[in-house]
């Protein structure tokens, strides 16, 4: 039957698909991979990974490769829109850009000239916060933040308040050298492709990977060990690991004394104003006790002889002890023994003991000694770089809980006691990090900072180190609309975007006139309690008869669920149609061995009447006459965003882009503007990388060469070392304030809370919703995960991606499901203390017993995203957000705090507790709640 010598058809093997190829940066998610876009007859034909790009080295994820369908999405907005029907109706008329800008300018200038606070400007995951934050401060409003507050401020704040860095953009594991990798609470992360590339490599190198996650999917599937932890208990687990390391004496005391404040003496004088603060000499230097000389010494003059425990008498006769003694005491306490955490975490104590042993064994027995000479900041030269090849990465599984700040700090403790931060094989900083602990930037927005017609004296976001940095009035009430930097969320370094709509609609703490939103779908998947949010957006102020939030401007690129709720829509371009900067001033794409920034360039011209939002913002700034955006003659300073990127200087010689500065295009980070800068970027695959000097690659926090290099390029203000704060004096100051020892004091109603949670040493406490709701009724923790191939709500408009996922189910542990007599696809009612959702169930083995979960942001509102209202996203999709309360259940005192971390204000999405019940009605065919469909009734310009 078989014969050789067949005649085969001739096929074209060397076909060419494009007449032009341009490089740019992907924006199908925030990972920012380099891409090559192939064009044919001016149309986008093919997008592939750029092999020469540092982020992805050529690989592409499911979203990135589907970029074409996003660019050609039917949901794209096509012209500026002015609302003509009631809010939420979707009745708009198209207007010209000129009309739109005149309207926006009139609204904005009125506010600026009376009370700039009345503008609340909040932006999403836009990556141009260096511009938007600056714009807000030039406008004069402190009411600015980006999405960090509902995203991962717990991680950023915990890291920056502990070791001057953090996960993701701030640092990453030493993928090439690490021998043991623990991944805490991550489904996908921002570091999407780099993480995947690294995991592939680790597996091939035989490095053990541990995934700590209530759910076993994605990375958990390929991990060597899956720790199916109970949600919200990671701090306890990490604490028990520290306990074991201490018990086993498996800690790096040398590292602790060199790089941390472990030896700093803490005053032990209960009742005194400075109880619990660091004992200092007359010059303000921290004190340590020198074991060799038996005397008090300047702790900053690092020595191997500093005591790590023991009572010491201070010059004034009071007692003090090294902070490490207090830390050891905390974690050696019964509360953190493997046995006592076992039930709460759902992890067997023998597993905890084993993992602690493995960590110790890897850190100390697989010690790495790199033959690389380096000098530390004291001037001491080391012949080698000693590494502890244990690395960790953590994200929202930790951060999206009301104990996330502390849990994250405990994970950092674990890294630090092992000596595994910025050493070979450990966790490495990415420039411009590390920064001072915490970065030396205080938030502006105090009463006197805000003046009609004037810019703020500083940036609206920053880091608080003592109660006097808070933005509160004399009564102790919040000065910002989101109550950031108030007693309710003192360390809210990124603001509380999730509270803005609620607060603005309910006049707490005050009214705003204009809510200006950019690139965040606040009417849907990024809000808690969506039904309530929609009511707030349309709420009427009884006094004025107007909307409680009188005006809303929104910039989106697509017809999202939020669009119908805005009064003026500024339609943005797609990511292939504009300039963007991924700036070192903002959230860069550096690698541990190089400082890197990048741009996006327009690949195609928009075929609609849309404009890049950044350009629009700059034009609005010019129309408003904001300082820095106009010339002396009041003419606009920048034509557009590209012009701004090249010519704007934040400080002398420092601009949005670090590469090819100066007249000769040979300066990095600091140098005069270079008119050809963007061309240079275009020629270099749209990024610029400056390598960290060889001897500066590890121990950056203490490495003389690094500190000098970073200072020279403006990353840090001084060459002082960055000393890790295991013990946080800043936190203790809040406790003292609660105790009325230092001013300002928290108002009485907040005292107890501040006193409880502002512990200078990280500790674990149960997430709030868990402790405030009935455990028997709400027996399950409910969490969500990001699907690797979908980006929040954007993915569903993508013809390819939505074929993969267009509906979601609630997953639960199979045994537990069987106990409830559930089988796959049964309809269930999921109830929280504020509402209920109806959806289908799916049973699985790899799910912690008390946990249910679903894919995030798959459920859509009918009428949005250019989809048929009968689409599965609406019929069989749902969001947990309907169940997540914006406020905590009332407990003592009748006060509802926001559902957030008490320290940072991070939204506690994953604290949710639910009850599950089978629905026996055979008629159930559709997930609930089903919102009335929104529409897009747009009156074209020429007929209006």
């Amino acid at each position, binding site marked *: 039957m078989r014969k050789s010598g067949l005649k085969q058809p001739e096929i074209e093997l060397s076909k060419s698909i494009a007449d032009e190829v341009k490089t740019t940066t992907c924006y199908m998610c925030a990972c920012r991979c380099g891409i090559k876009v192939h064009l044919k007859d001016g149309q986008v034909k093919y997008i592939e990974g750029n092999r020469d790009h540092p982020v992805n080295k050529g*690989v592409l994820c499911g979203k990135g490769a589907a970029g074409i369908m996003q660019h050609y999405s039917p949901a794209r907005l096509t012209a500026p829109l002015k609302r003509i029907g009631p809010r939420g109706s979707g009745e708009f008329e198209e207007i010209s850009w000129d009309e739109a800008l005149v309207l926006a300018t009139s609204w904005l200038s009125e506010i600026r000239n009376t009370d700039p606070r009345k503008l609340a400007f909040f932006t999403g995951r836009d990556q141009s916060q260096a511009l938007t934050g600056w714009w807000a401060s030039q406008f004069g409003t402190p009411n600015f933040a980006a999405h960090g507050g509902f995203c991962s401020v717990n991680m950023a704040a915990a890291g920056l308040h502990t070791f001057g860095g953090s996960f993701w953009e701030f640092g990453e594991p030493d993928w090439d050298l690490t021998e043991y990798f623990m991944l805490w609470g991550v489904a996908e992360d921002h570091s999407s492709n780099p993480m995947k590339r690294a995991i592939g490599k680790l597996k091939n190198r035989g490095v053990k990977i541990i995934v700590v996650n209530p759910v076993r999917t994605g990375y958990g599937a390929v991990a060597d060990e899956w720790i199916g932890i109970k949600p919200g208990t990671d701090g306890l687990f990490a604490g028990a690991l520290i306990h074991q390391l201490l018990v086993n004496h498996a800690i790096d005391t040398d590292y602790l004394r060199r790089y941390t404040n472990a030896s700093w003496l803490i005053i032990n004088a209960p009742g005194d104003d400075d109880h619990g603060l660091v004992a200092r000499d007359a010059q303000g230097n921290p004190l340590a006790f020198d074991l060799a000389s038996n005397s008090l010494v300047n702790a900053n003059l690092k020595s191997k002889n500093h005591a790590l425990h023991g009572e010491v008498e201070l010059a004034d006769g009071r007692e003090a002890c090294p902070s490490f003694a207090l830390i050891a005491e905390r974690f050696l306490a019964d509360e953190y023994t493997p046995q006592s955490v076992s039930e709460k975490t759902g992890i067997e104590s023998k597993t905890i003991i084993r993992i602690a042993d493995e960590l110790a064994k890897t850190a100390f027995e697989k010690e790495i000694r790199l033959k690389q000479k380096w000098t530390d900041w004291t001037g001491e030269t080391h012949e080698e770089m000693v590494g502890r090849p244990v690395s960790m990465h953590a994200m929202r599984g930790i951060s999206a809980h009301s104990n996330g700040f502390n849990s994250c700090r405990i994970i950092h403790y674990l890294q630090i006691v092992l000596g595994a931060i910025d050493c070979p094989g450990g966790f490495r900083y990415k420039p411009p990090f590390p920064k001072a602990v915490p970065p030396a930037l205080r938030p502006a927005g105090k009463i006197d900072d805000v003046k009609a017609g004037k810019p703020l004296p500083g940036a609206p976001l920053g880091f608080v180190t003592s109660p006097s940095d808070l933005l509160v009035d004399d009564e102790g009430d919040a000065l910002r609309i989101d109550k950031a930097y108030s007693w309710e969320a003192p360390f809210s370094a990124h603001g509380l975007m999730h509270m803005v709509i609620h607060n603005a609609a309910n006049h707490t703490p005050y009214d705003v006139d204009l809510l200006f939103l950019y690139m965040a779908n606040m009417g849907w998947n990024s809000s808690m309690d969506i039904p309530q949010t929609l009511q707030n957006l349309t709420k009427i102020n009884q006094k004025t008869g107007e909307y409680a939030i009188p005006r809303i401007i929104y910039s989106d690129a697509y017809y999202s669920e939020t669009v119908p709720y805005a009064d003026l829509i500024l339609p943005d371009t797609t990511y292939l149609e504009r300039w963007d900067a991924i700036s070192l001033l903002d959230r860069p794409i550096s690698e541990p061995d190089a400082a890197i920034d990048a741009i996006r360039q327009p690949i195609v011209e928009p075929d609609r009447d849309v404009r890049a939002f950044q350009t629009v913002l700059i034009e609005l700034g010019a129309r408003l006459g904001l300082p820095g955006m106009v010339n002396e003659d009041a003419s606009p300073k920048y034509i557009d965003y590209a012009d701004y990127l090249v010519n704007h200087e934040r400080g002398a010689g420092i601009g949005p882009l670090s590469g090819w500065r100066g007249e000769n295009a040979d300066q990095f980070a600091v140098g005069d503007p270079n008119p050809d800068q963007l061309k240079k970027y275009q020629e270099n695959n749209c990024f610029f990388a400056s390598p960290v000097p060889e001897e500066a690659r590890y121990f950056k926090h203490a490495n003389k060469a690094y500190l000098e290099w970073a200072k020279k390029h403006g990353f840090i203000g001084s060459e002082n070392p960055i000393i890790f704060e295991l013990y946080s004096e800043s936190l203790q100051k809040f406790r003292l304030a609660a105790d009325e020892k230092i001013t300002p004091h928290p108002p009485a109603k907040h005292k107890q809370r501040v006193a409880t949670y502002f512990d200078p040493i990280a500790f674990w406490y149960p997430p709030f919703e868990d402790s405030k709701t009935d455990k028997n009724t709400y027996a399950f923790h409910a969490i969500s995960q990001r699907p690797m191939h979908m980006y929040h709500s954007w993915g569903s408009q993508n013809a390819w991606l939505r074929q993969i996922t267009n509906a979601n189910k609630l997953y639960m542990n199979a045994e537990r499901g069987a106990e409830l007599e559930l089988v796959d696809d049964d309809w269930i009612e999921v109830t929280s203390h504020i509402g209920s959702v109806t959806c289908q169930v799916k049973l699985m083995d790899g799910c912690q017993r008390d946990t249910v979960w679903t894919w995030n942001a798959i459920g859509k509102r009918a009428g949005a995203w250019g989809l048929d209202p009968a689409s599965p996203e609406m019929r069989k999709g749902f969001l947990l957000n309907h169940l997540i309360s914006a406020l905590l259940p009332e407990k003592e005192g009748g006060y509802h705090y926001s559902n957030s971390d008490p320290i940072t204000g991070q939204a506690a999405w994953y604290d949710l507790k639910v009850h599950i019940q089978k629905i026996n009605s055979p008629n159930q065919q559709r997930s609930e709640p089903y919102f009335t469909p929104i529409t897009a009734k747009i009156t074209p310009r020429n007929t209006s």
Partner: protein
Amino acid sequence: MTNLPSHTEKKLGLLIDLDICVGCHGCVTSCKEWNSTDDMLPLSDFDSYGDNPDGVFLNRVHGYEIDDGISSQTVHFPRSCLHCETPECVTVCPTGASYKRQEDGIVLVNPDSCIGCKLCSWACPYGAREYDHKQGIMKKCTLCVDRIYNEELAQEERKPACVLACPTSARLFGDFADPESEVSILSEKRGGMTLMESLDYKPVNRYLPPREKQSEKTENAINTFFASENGYVGRNQTQANNAGLDSFFTWLDDKLSSKNI
């Protein structure tokens, strides 16, 4: 043409590593994208924004939970044409549109002669053939034959789109007829698996099984850790109390004084 070549010079195919596939669907959309670049013959989509979105994909990724009776694990499983050595998808084809290339074993459909009778898709056990009902012809993975020999592309880009895209490098491309090739060596070393062997289609593509998990493997090693001499170790108890704290501080004293003073 539906005669199979008695042997092929090469056996080009994919080696898919189930140990590191994280199920990201990067290979899915990059395949869709590359194979839609031909304006005349893109991989069609149907009802793209409607209530029943559907379309032709040449590669799809499933997620399973598997259990060998001892432990359960999650695996992601990419599925595309395996370029079988004796595939009946080819021999059943009435028109000769389906054929297996003699030089490299790639199984292709000639879009100019396919009549869309769908019989080949019935004959494929692996679901690797998808019918494009807009164009009325059968589609399948081409092993990116228009990339791997494409002289317009740089040498290192002459690989299947899915292989280049895969972020974890779970997909490897090569010649299984060459025992020295990376895919042959790895497949040999790690027990490359064949799908549905009993059907005797002799698939060329192989799947690497998940490696043995290192979860408890280190248990033994821990003992040596206790005995280690490097000064950091020596577990004396697993449970602490105040005695634990005392003993810790005693150790700390010893350590700090003995080493440094």
